[in-house]
């Protein structure tokens, strides 16, 4: 799946991504996550103002068959959510790294990003997960 994943994102083992611009991180689900979930029909996003901790569940995405928790890639305060997903959750399937973003957060500890995978590490991790499925 080389080339699918943006090079300037960081990735979690639970298949979220974060793209950091200044002090703001935009968060979404990886292509691997959306592909394995199947068509997403419902999203429960955090509220603006919610304080999240790295690794903590911030909401769920639901496919036809399954409910899946999503985990914060970093700690901080939610400043904006992708309202388009309320009516069009399928954007996560069609454009997981772009239009299908979930929310933006103000990072409280940017050093936490060092715990995440860069694109090379994630592509390797994702390939291993794929083989295990």
């Amino acid at each position, binding site marked *: 799946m080389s080339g699918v994943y943006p090079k300037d994102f960081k990735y979690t083992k639970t298949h979220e991504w974060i793209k950091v611009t200044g002090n703001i991180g935009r968060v979404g689900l990886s292509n691997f996550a959306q592909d394995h979930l*199947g068509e997403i*029909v419902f999203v*429960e996003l955090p509220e603006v103002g919610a304080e999240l901790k790295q690794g903590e569940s911030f909401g769920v995405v*639901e*496919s*036809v*068959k399954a*409910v899946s928790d999503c985990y914060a890639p970093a700690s901080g305060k939610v400043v904006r959510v992708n309202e388009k997903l309320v009516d069009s959750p399928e954007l996560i399937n069609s454009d997981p790294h772009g239009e299908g973003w979930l929310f933006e957060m103000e990072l409280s500890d940017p050093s936490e990003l060092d715990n995440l995978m860069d694109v090379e590490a994630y592509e390797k991790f994702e390939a291993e997960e794929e083989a295990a499925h």
Partner: protein
Amino acid sequence: MTGLKKTPLYDLHVKHGGRIIDFGGWALPVQYTSIIEEHRTTREKAGLFDVSHMGEFRVTGKDPLGFLQKAVTNDIAKADVGRCIYSPMCYPSGGCVDDLIVYRLGEKEYLVVVNAANAAKDFAWMTDILEGFPGTRLVDESDGTAELALQGPKAETILQKVTEVDLKAIGYYRVRDKVKVAGRTCMVSRTGYTGEDGFEIFSSPEDAPEIWEALMEAGRPEGLVPVGLGARDTLRFEASMPLYGQELDAERTPLEAGLERFVSLDKGDFIGREALVAQKERGLERKLVGFEMVGRGIPRHDYPILDAAGETEIGYVTSGSYAPTLDKNLGSGYVPVEMSGIGQKIHVGIRRRAVEAVVVRTPFYRRRRPTGA
């Protein structure tokens, strides 16, 4: 996924891109392309399902009718040769052992098709009942039987291309044995689990892959697609067809599940009859309803149902899903009878929040029958 049972079509599922899951010990495809697409194509055109995991028992010998009348709740005496009858099968408590279809194939020959997950339990249960019917035989033919379901408005057109029997002569819930489909000997019934017109085709495991391929080939111009278990579940759910383990189980009776028309209390004795008569005389305490979400959220199996104020737990969700044809979030569940009226406001407990819902009429989806049919 080692150690799983495979149907005779397993290699075809893999070849056609089926995403294989463990379904109660069976390796079966949950989807090929997309649950929603497969669902909608079955409603609008046609879908082909591998349901070879289902259990099949043949009943023959001295008194197959007497045996079946004792074992199940519906009146099997109503079945002339070539008729299929849906029925619950109950414990003495009135709770359900399973729900099944009885196919009458001859004067003293019946095939009983049961849920895959219950097949071993059902066979043991029915074997016990058989002790009261010396000379009657019950044979588990599940391993030697493959089953395909061809469902949707184009099903008849497609199947007709590969069989010489006039399918118009096989009416709803009718069965014809020893029919040639794609040159192979099959049993064909006009039954299914989708809410659409369609057929189920029973064959030997050896013949099943060729029948599957012949149907896919014949159905290409009509837009036939293979369909996995995901859409099988959303299709049956939209049509409000019960699923054992969700709407039905050992704790709930067919009366509570709204299946009274499949319970013949006046046919004579059967297992569970006393309990069901008593329950009917007492009046039901709870019953199965369908509901539509008003607030945001998807109800799921085992979520709590709360009252109109969203405060007190009054029941539980048996099935729930985004309904692809209706484009709504729907659920079914058990509630107290006094809260089961159409339009009743209820709530569903979703991740510790009470989300509003309203009781609606079922089935959620009913197909439009062709005029004149």
